[in-house]
């Protein structure tokens, strides 16, 4: 059984790497944006008093690129793959073998977690080497935010896969969710510049809490308890709903 799980995870990993779009949006784009914008936009690399003296390319921008990678993975790559498996009868076919289709789900999640770890590490290392972005100053806080946030986002992806009737819908819905969620996280309008109302809304979204938590931990601050609670809440709610609603066929 463990041999089967190892095989499943290995095949899922290879299939992920064979999807150029997934690799591009999850790994190449965030790292590329960090390099391109960090290297060209004047002011990104100047110390900013309104950011407590750190540069925009440090925690604020690097944090957003890590968020972008995980959100794309969780709301696009993961649900698309799972809905396709259901659509093609792969999960149903697997239920006639000694291995339960739940193993395929676990293998997918494992691969997604591994990919998000790699994408995050790559973003941190590239930022560090290219622009001297400091590595997380509060590593344990960073790890906690990373785990909670990733679990919350992947649970949302599972919920999306559970309720979407087919791959066309899951792709559309994934994109439709991703843009407002990234906006609320401060991808285009950084949170410190948001009006009060927007900021309060952002605090309670999974991406807003995740993004701010990453930025805080990267910059050496303790993440706000509110944000950790929001992430745990989303993880629990989306995870339970996905488990209830997921259809194997």
């Amino acid at each position, binding site marked *: 059984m463990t041999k089967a799980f190892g*095989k499943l995870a290995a095949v899922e990993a290879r299939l992920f790497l064979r999807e150029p779009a997934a690799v591009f949006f999850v790994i190449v784009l965030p790292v590329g944006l960090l390099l391109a914008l960090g290297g060209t936009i004047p002011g990104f690399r100047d110390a900013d008093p309104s950011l407590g003296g750190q540069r925009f390319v440090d925690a604020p921008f690097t944090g957003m690129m890590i968020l972008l990678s995980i959100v794309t993975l969780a709301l696009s790559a993961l649900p698309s793959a799972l809905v396709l498996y259901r659509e093609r009868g792969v999960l149903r076919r697997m239920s*006639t073998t*000694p291995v339960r289709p739940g193993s395929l789900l676990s293998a997918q999640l494992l691969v997604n977690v591994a990919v998000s770890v790699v994408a995050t590490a790559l973003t941190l290392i590239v930022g560090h080497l290219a622009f001297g972005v400091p590595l997380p100053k509060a590593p344990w806080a960073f790890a906690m935010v990373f785990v909670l946030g990733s679990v919350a986002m992947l649970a949302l992806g599972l919920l999306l896969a559970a309720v979407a009737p087919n791959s066309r819908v899951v792709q559309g819905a994934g994109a439709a969710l991703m843009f407002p969620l990234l906006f609320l996280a401060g991808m285009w309008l950084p949170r410190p510049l948001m009006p009060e109302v927007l900021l309060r809304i952002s605090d309670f979204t999974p991406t807003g809490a995740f993004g701010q938590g990453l930025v805080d931990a990267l910059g050496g601050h303790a993440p706000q308890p509110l944000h950790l609670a929001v992430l745990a809440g989303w993880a629990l709610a989306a995870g339970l709903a996905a488990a209830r609603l997921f259809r194997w066929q």
Partner: protein
Amino acid sequence: MAIITVDHLRKTYGTRVAVEDVSFSVEEGEVFGIVGRNGAGKTTTVECVAGLRTPTSGTVTVDADLKEQVGVQLQECSLPDKIRVGEALALYASFYSRPADWRALAEEAGLDLRAPFAKLSGGQRQRLSVALALVGSPRVAILDELTTGLDPRARRETWDLVARIRDRGVTVLLVTHFMEEVERLCDRVAVISRGRVRAVDTPAGLVARAGGEQRLVFHTGEPVDGLRALPEVTSVVVTADGDDAEVTVTGTTDLLSAVTAVLPPARMRDLRMERTTLDDAFLVLTGQEES
């Protein structure tokens, strides 16, 4: 000893009755066909046997471990586009405690291990699907509509593969609506129509039930009255006369040898033999009004 026993199986979805009342048993080592038109309840029946659906009432007994020893090829089941033949086979082989040699299976099915699923033809996909059903060295293989949509050549290649499975002693439960497939592969057949079994018999037995008549039609200048006395002959009809009479002799099995013993083939012209086919038998047994 029956390896599969289906006893008064009934399956409904809400108010729709998919299977009304189906009973049959499959002996170890035979190729057992389930034939019927689309919507007759064939797939629901075998999916109940495979454990994918729970019967509404009635029982299904399979004398084998459902997961380990029953290999299944489902209708409308495919794989991710980018998975390679070898990866899929190795993966499914890892699911079982005593897997078959998947490389040998691929070779037998004529599949290139490096080919991605998306690049496979319809026939290759079906053969991969059969190979995946066999990769756990099952005692029973359930194959659902495995040649639907294939061209004649691909169909023949798939049949050859099934024949080789049978030769290994694997019991095969085969769902089909092709009579030619039944004739080539099946030892026995259950004919299902509107959720009920209409007959369970060998293909030849089904033909016999539907009349099983043979007809010889030929032209001759010889007298044919003597044929009427033969025990195998039920009627002789002569149309036209003189040197070029067309004669139709109707009778039972062995009609040809009985007739040619009296009237040498050299004296006949344009000899042809017509017989009840399995197609005819199927139409008679299921009633033609359904089509």
